[in-house]
């Protein structure tokens, strides 16, 4: 149960998003946090791990398996994970419940009855029992993100990938969503998240990778990295963001 990347590089036209990133995360890590300034490569790294995009060069391996090349194999890779985005990305024409049911039925080939029961169970657990029939447009940002989280975990993914899950939320909703993520962690869910919530990263993550300008500046045990960062840039970043 590990994540390894070697010389990972991703370029969009002339913009280099990720350059020569090698990371080694051992079996013992349950929560991996990606931190660093905006535009530093966190989202790109997450998308490459999740098989949403292919690297220009370098390799990714998760739990001993190497990220495949072909679209079919990548699809299988993606199915095993759960993904959550900053902007929720729910399907606006479907109800909250249907957003969770649809992938279970169509992708994971679970019967509709079973999927409905599963979706209701997880949505109720997330405090959305009264909102099953509402469309995303009728829900608050926090509620939408909780539906999106329900959708991401309903098929019991091996890894839950969270891309700045609370960046678009106000403080109260942030807390709601972070509480849920923490609850999932306590139940043994393995998580990789990119975040600007340093307090949460420090408390919940076992391992932290600091990315800036598309490069990995530092990685290591969360407590160690937050208390005694090795590089000046990481130190200065943490001082700035932890100041308030």
């Amino acid at each position, binding site marked *: 149960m590990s994540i390894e990347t070697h010389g990972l590089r991703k370029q969009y036209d002339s913009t280099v998003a990720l350059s020569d990133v090698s990371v080694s995360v051992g079996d013992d890590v349950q929560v991996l946090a990606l931190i660093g300034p905006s535009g530093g490569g966190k989202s790109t790294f997450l998308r490459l791990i999740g098989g949403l995009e292919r690297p220009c060069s370098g390799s990714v391996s998760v739990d001993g398996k190497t990220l495949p090349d072909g679209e079919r194999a990548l*699809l299988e890779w993606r199915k095993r994970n759960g*993904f959550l*985005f900053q902007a929720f*990305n*729910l399907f606006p*024409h479907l109800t909250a419940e249907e957003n969770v049911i649809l*992938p279970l039925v169509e*992708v994971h080939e679970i019967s509709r009855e079973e999927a409905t029961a599963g979706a209701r169970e997880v949505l109720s657990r997330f405090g959305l029992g009264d909102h099953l029939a509402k469309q*995303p447009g009728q829900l608050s940002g926090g509620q939408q993100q909780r539906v999106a989280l329900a*959708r991401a975990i309903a098929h019991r993914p091996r890894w839950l990938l969270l891309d700045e899950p609370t960046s678009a939320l106000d403080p109260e909703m942030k807390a709601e969503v972070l509480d849920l993520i923490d609850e999932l962690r306590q139940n043994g869910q393995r998580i990789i998240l990119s975040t600007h919530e340093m307090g949460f990263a420090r408390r919940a993550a076992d391992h932290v990778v600091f990315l800036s300008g598309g490069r990995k500046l530092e990685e290591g045990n969360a407590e160690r990295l937050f208390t005694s960062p090795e590089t000046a840039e990481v130190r200065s970043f943490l001082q700035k963001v932890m100041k308030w």
Partner: protein
Amino acid sequence: MKAFLGVFVSVVLGSTFCFVFWVVISHEYQWSDIAPYKGNFVSGWWTTLLISAIALVGSIVIGALLTSGQLSPWSAPRVLSRTFVEIIRGTPLLTQILIGYYLVAPAIGWDSRFGVGVLILSCFAGAYLSEIFRGGIESIPSTQWLSARAIGFTDAQTYRFVVIPQAIRRVLPASAGQFANLIKDSSLLFVISVHEFTMQAREVNANTYATFEAYLPLIFGYFVLTFPISLISRHLEKRFSYEH
């Protein structure tokens, strides 16, 4: 200024309407002149209804094919569809009907005015519809695609469950307009002597010289065909509506 413009527009529109209304009611109608030709109107109206109904289905099929051609990952269908759409949209329908019936149809040994007329109308409306469909599909934000990929949907599933249901709502008003145009455009088929509604009215006029009486039924006849389309479209818009 705005108020003045409003009053001005109302006065112009109001007086134009009054004038037309006065012309229409002050005319001394000789309905008895056209009474013997009642059957012509009825058969013409049915022919127009039949042509429109078949061409409406045909235009949706052709429009959908052209849209998939234009969105295809391969260049041959893209270029072919694009060329077809540009030629159809860039030339008058009247010319297409004449060339289609007098040049193309004889070359392949096809001698059905009705059939050729329906096919040309289908192609004409299909070309416009394909642009409406393409616009609708391309207006679905890329985040929806990303989300669908993350869930593990194939491209086909993404179109079926995510993109097309949302695009339908967006293309309905413009498509309804195109369908209404299709019905009205069918009146041009008189040039190849298809005995549709307008052709019949022209013949009645030629036989009776009762111009008003011959042409007035056209207004009602076409309106009862186009108005339901407007109503159905609004009904569907509501059915497919969702909050953004």
